């Protein structure tokens, strides 16, 4: 490819060489001035950089894929672990709620209250906050039957 122009230059030079017989008169000097040696084109583009680029792109791509895949895998394991932890905590919360509900049931509360010596007062007294009026006669709760 790079050889072709060189050849044509040579050819035109050759043509130019045969020309003086016909064009010695006027154009000859100008034409001679226009002709010059063209620097030969570079032989072939170097392959090395292209290969390097391709290999680099491929390598980076592959490494990227590996990294991405690894990250995703890790995230999958992390997700599984967190899901496991979440379900374990949910179960723990349910267990605590289950026990709390039972301890908060009226029967448990009544038993606990009796246990510390509390007794129900059957004759409550009402206080009206706006007037300060007391309705009922304050009487201590009776002793336990």
């Amino acid at each position, binding site marked *: 490819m790079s050889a072709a122009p060189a050849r044509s230059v040579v050819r035109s030079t050759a043509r130019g060489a045969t020309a003086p017989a016909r064009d010695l008169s006027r154009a000859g000097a100008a034409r001679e001035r226009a002709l010059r040696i063209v620097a030969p084109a570079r032989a072939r583009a170097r392959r090395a950089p292209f290969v390097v680029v391709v290999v680099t792109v491929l390598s980076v791509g592959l490494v990227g894929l590996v990294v991405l895949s690894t990250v995703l895998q890790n995230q999958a394991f992390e997700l599984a672990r967190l899901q496991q932890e979440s379900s374990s905590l949910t*179960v723990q919360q*349910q*267990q605590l709620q289950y026990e709390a509900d*039972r301890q908060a*049931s009226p029967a448990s509360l*009544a038993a606990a209250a009796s246990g510390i010596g509390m007794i129900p007062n059957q*004759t409550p007294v*009402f206080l009206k906050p706006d007037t300060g009026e007391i*309705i*009922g006669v304050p009487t201590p709760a009776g002793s336990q039957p």
Partner: protein
Amino acid sequence: MTGTTRARRAGVVRRRVQISLAVVLVVFLAFGARLLQIQGFDTSAYAAMASDAGTRSTVVPAERGQILDRNGVPLATSYDGITLTADPTLTAENAPRIAGILREVLGTEVDYFDLIDQLRKPDSRFVYVVKDIPAWQADQVMDGLKEAELTGVFVQHESLRSYPNGSVAANLIGRLNNDGQGVGGLEQRYDDLLSGTDGSATYSVSPTGEKIPLADSQVTDMVPGSDVTTTIDSDLQWYADDTLSQAVQAAGADWGLAVTLDVQTCEVLQMSQVPTFDADAKTGLTDAKTVSRGLQTVYEPGSVMKAITMAALADQGKISPTTPISVPSSMSIDGFTIGDAWNHGQLNLTAAGVIAKSSNLGTIIASQQMDDETMYEYLSRFGFGTKTGVGLPGESVGILTDPAGWSKANHATISFGQGVSVTAMQMVRAVGAIANGGQICEPTVVSGSRSPEGVTTPTPHDAPKQIISQEAARSVTTMMEAVTTDDGSAPAAQIPGYRVAGKTGTAWRVDPDTGRYVSGSHTVSFMGFAPADAPRFLTYVVIDNPTAAASGGGTAAPVFRDIMSMALQRFGILPTGAPAPQTPLSW
């Protein structure tokens, strides 16, 4: 010679080549045929097998909605449960160790030797090890097995029901059967609303069981059920359960019930019955304990019905608390001799006195002022013979016969509550109308529901209906207030500081097998509301077949007093301070 040998060799080589070619051809044909089978004919089967091997599918059980009391306290709630299964081919060898771990975590819930039998079941690859255990116990079991490197036990997820208050309001709440469907009470009535929709998850897994990221997965989210909010006050309910239980036990009765109604809103605050069951512990699941006494048991109410008879007469303007009534010592109607519960001669009682003393004869004489049709019409207005609209399963309508078939004796006995059968909820609705100024309403046990998105839907109510005049209602209330005075039949129902209206009942019991009254066998009851001058709550107590010498005033009224006192206290109802009317009981 040499030429012949060469020719023979060439023949051998050619034959060998041919044989080799044939063998290769056969092998290739076999491969081709197999390939055709796999790719051409059995494609879908193999694709499914490949897909099954790499995917895992699980059911995500829907969380059943909660049943809450009026303050949001859970009466029924759900939690994650597990059923443990096993592959005996994997567990047979280590059965004692696995059973040991199960026994250690689950205690007496499981039998060690039964477990070993299950884990060693011959010719089986699937057995149930233990059903319906809380997920936290299952986690402990699985952790224990993992630590001991024992395999072959698997988990199945499910949703379990918990009733934190045990037997409190059990008959109202109902329970779930083994298939997770509601049986009885609100669990049955609102099953569709509570149950939600199960979800599922299908995803690709690696051979080690890890979920593969970005692989195909199909997740259908479960839709949790809605919560149902009742009108029950769990503390009052427990207190009533406890009080009633003691009374029923002390009286040696077959059963007892107590219902409290907010007469202004028609909301049921508590609905107790004894004996009952415990859906949480799954004990007492017999018909006699799971039946809803307040709605399904039909009985003759006895003298509480006198209040209804008086209300009918008062509405017609035929009676007032001071109307004088001459009460004979006994009466003979259609050949039957009818008397009062106590022996007396001729009595001059007012209408209030008839109610206060609970005179059958006085009531008969008063009721003779209206004909059968009118009496039937009023009983129908008060809701007898129809369901109460409370909307719970299995409700009975009671027995109110057509007046065309009534004899004089029928008219007489129905006026004091014999010869008519009712449910407790019907009685509560009817007397509730007297307490509520003559307006009858449908009792309700559910105030509304809340969807998982938080949208609250209140339960629709029919507007109360005026069935008797306000004056008539007030008039009967005055008569009923006389019952709880010292001269009345139930002074035990008095609550210090409050005016209380009430009516006792002591009815003959009908043997359901023979349809006849059983001598000496009674149903005692007390119906009352307070404060009588501004009625807010009504409580009805029924105690059936007490063995001891029992009466409405002596046995049921104290239970009424305790429950009513607690209701007034809990809701902060102040005594009005108005003096009780001094209605004369005689003239």
